[in-house]
């Protein structure tokens, strides 16, 4: 075992923000480009040729946290502004309007003169509308705002499903290697499974343990949980 551990790359700027959340207190979450950080984080990891799931998990958790902070700020912005301070001064009662008949000067001629202008404007508008041919100005809101509630609901179901699979695989209790669990799964699906495992571990349904040398993660299920070292 080496005593001097080299500081991993992700503890250096700019990624360190994902691992040292206390720093967030000093900066606005809106100045953090999560997409850039995660992409470069993945690239960097790829370059090193070693996938560190613990770091990835923390990065993901931090990203979600920053995202939540951004959302909260957005909601804060939507709060109605405080009503202006009312300065007290004597406000007289409304004046009584004398009722008088008054002929007005607007004739059908005036009406038609302005109508001519409005119709010209209408034509211009229609032409412009046809040119832009229904191209939406903004992307669909679901693209910008992920359906958080839906995702959370879905995650519960997925967790239950994965847990059932795991129990089934070990027939009650036992140990499974992560690599075996994700064998043949596409990369994205493997990551999703890993995240679900993190959730399960957090609820103490499973235990996770990683072998320092091989990097293999062992999943302990059932009665083995209590003894399994936590990650």
């Amino acid at each position, binding site marked *: 075992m080496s005593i001097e551990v080299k500081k991993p790359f992700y503890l250096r700027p700019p990624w360190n923000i994902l691992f040292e959340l206390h720093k967030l207190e000093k900066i606005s979450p809106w100045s953090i480009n999560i997409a850039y950080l995660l992409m470069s984080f993945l690239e960097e990891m790829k370059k090193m040729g070693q996938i560190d799931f613990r770091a990835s998990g923390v990065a993901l958790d931090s990203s979600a946290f920053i995202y939540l902070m951004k959302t909260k700020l957005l909601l804060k912005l939507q709060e109605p502004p405080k009503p202006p301070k009312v300065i007290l001064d004597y406000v007289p009662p409304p004046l009584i309007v004398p009722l008088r*008949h008054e002929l*007005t*000067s*607007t004739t059908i001629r005036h*009406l038609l003169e302005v109508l001519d*202008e409005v119709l010209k404007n209408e034509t211009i508008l229609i032409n412009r509308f046809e040119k832009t041919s229904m191209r939406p100005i903004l992307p669909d809101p679901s693209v910008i705002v992920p359906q958080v509630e839906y995702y959370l609901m879905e995650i519960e179901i997925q967790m239950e499903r994965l847990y059932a699979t795991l129990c089934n695989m070990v027939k009650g209790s036992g140990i499974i290697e992560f690599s075996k669990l994700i064998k043949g799964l596409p990369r994205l699906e493997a990551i999703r499974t890993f995240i679900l495992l993190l959730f399960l571990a957090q609820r103490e349904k499973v235990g996770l343990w990683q072998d320092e040398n091989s990097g293999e993660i062992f999943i302990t299920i059932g009665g083995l949980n209590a003894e399994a070292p936590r990650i």
Partner: protein
Amino acid sequence: MQKPQESESKGEGKEVLREKLKRKLALVEAALYVAGRPLSLSDLCSILKTQSKDKAKKIVEMLAREYANRNTAIEILELKDERYVMQLKSEFAPYVKKLIKRPLLSPGPLKTLSYIAIRQPISQKKVIEVRGRHAYTHIKVLKEMGLITIEKRGRSAMLRTTDYFADYFGLSRDITTMKRELKKILERETSEKSQMEDA
């Protein structure tokens, strides 16, 4: 003198009746004066707080006769469908025309009104699209002035001009006919304009 009490009360009754009639005449006069547009017998009934159209009719016709006897610049006329209007006798119009300064509406709302008139029935959404967001205020004003009606249909609102609008501009109250009239006058005006510009 046999029934002094009764006769006295009858005398009082007459006085009261005359005063009541005078007040009713004044109420109808007040209504026609401030409205400045034809009022129906129903309108007059609601002012007189009576349900009898006959009564309202008697009162307004009495007032009209009084105006006719005075023979001055203002007259009260009965129109078709039992509507009544107070107006300036047309022979006086040329002499006092220059005093009429206030437009019915400022140009913005007038534009919105003309657009609604020619495209009605039209959704509020469409009016806003063509006229811009400030047209929300215009629509509110036009509604308040009784020039248009707003009919809610689920989430959308359909706009139409009122009979008052038709009466004011001397157009047919029937929407199809009115639109035809408007288009005809508009075309004539446009062609006159282009002829003048060509000349």
